């Protein structure tokens, strides 16, 4: 396998150290999002804690905490010798109503700023869902 191919080859994560959200939480959320979206599939191998920490310029404990929480929730599993992989049955995320409402408000605000009326906005959402 070429060094630039393979599971997770195209998946990147970004951490903003000035963001109020702690870095471990940023990592945790992004990995959950990547698994939920199918960018990472069950069995995909993730980098070691040390590799990811070095690449992000973070302490190993920060990445280790993110991995630990993801393992505890069933998103990842770690086996000695096999590394850390995406869990075979990752939990289905439950939609947080408040977060959904926030996303919808943001979308509507931006769409109206672009000049779209309510009917156009609804049509675009329907298109996106189909």
């Amino acid at each position, binding site marked *: 396998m*070429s*060094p630039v191919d393979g599971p997770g*080859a195209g998946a*990147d994560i970004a951490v903003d150290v000035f963001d109020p959200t702690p870095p471990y939480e940023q990592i945790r959320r992004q990995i959950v999002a990547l698994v939920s979206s199918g960018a990472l599939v069950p069995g995909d191998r993730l980098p*070691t804690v040390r590799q*990811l920490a070095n*690449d992000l*310029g*973070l302490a190993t404990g920060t990445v280790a905490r993110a991995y630990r929480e993801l393992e505890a929730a069933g998103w990842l599993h770690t086996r000695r010798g096999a590394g850390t992989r995406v869990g075979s049955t990752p939990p289905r995320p439950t939609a947080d109503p408040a977060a959904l409402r926030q996303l919808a408000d943001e979308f509507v605000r931006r769409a109206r700023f672009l000049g779209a009326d309510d009917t156009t906005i609804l049509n675009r959402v329907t298109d996106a869902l189909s």
Partner: protein
Amino acid sequence: MAGPLVVVLIGVGMLVGVLAGGLGRVEPAPVSAALADEARRVGRWSWGGLAMGVVAAAAVGQWDRLGRGLLLAAPVLGLAVLAGTIGGELAVTGPTAGTRRAGLRARRVGDYVPRRAAVMVAGAAAALVAVAVGAILAGSDDDLGRAGRVLTTSCSPDTSSSRGPWPGWFYSGPLLAVVGMGLVLAVVALRAVVSRPRMTIDQASVPVGGDSTSTCGRAGPMDADASAMALDEALRRWSAKRVVAACAMVVALPLLGMASVGAVVLAGAECLPAGGRAAGAALVLVAPLAAVLLGWSVHALLIPAGLRAGSGGVGRA
């Protein structure tokens, strides 16, 4: 008869090794000046290790008139190259921008080491251990009590003859210790190659749609990141190849020396026990294979990373 034959086989073997080492060629890739500087730092550590190794090997080679210094010189050179490689990998700085990006591909040692050469080095290491253990078991003390320095054979219960120098404990003991250190250092070096921070363009310094580098042409942030990734991967391959080449240096020259000396002693020994002649023939075959590996190692250690700022290229070392 065995002496000249071994010398000819060694010469042919080294020639084959050097020619085989020259088959890998350069794949140009765009390199930014900043990243080239970072890569050069890795290179300077590695070349510094090689230079220190040459000095240390020359010093060690002077030690012990009975040849142990000469036997240990190449392994010491290999150790210094490994130490330089580790220093170079540790010198790579991590990201410092506010927003840092990382890929989720797990890097593995197997992605970077040249597999055929690694298999040859592993085989040579196993052969070296086998030759050393066999020589230790077969050797006898010489007239001054130096352990395993001669091979003693008996043609009758009353007479025996000793020939040396024989690569028994006197030579193999210190050699195995140094080779063991080399293998430990190689593991540390390969772990450093894989886990050191990825070289990235500082995204904060890249104007949107603009040129992030002074020399790379009109590349946008994504192009710059891709070229940084290509450089990073090429540099890891280069370092991993140097680690394997250093290991080859650690094991190949001692194996060559021990096999050659052992073959010559066995060829001249009288009344060898069963298996002695076969062992001698095996050593005659091992010596040129060790020479091939040594030739490849010398060539691989002298390949530059091929970095040039500006139109730069990254050697697929």
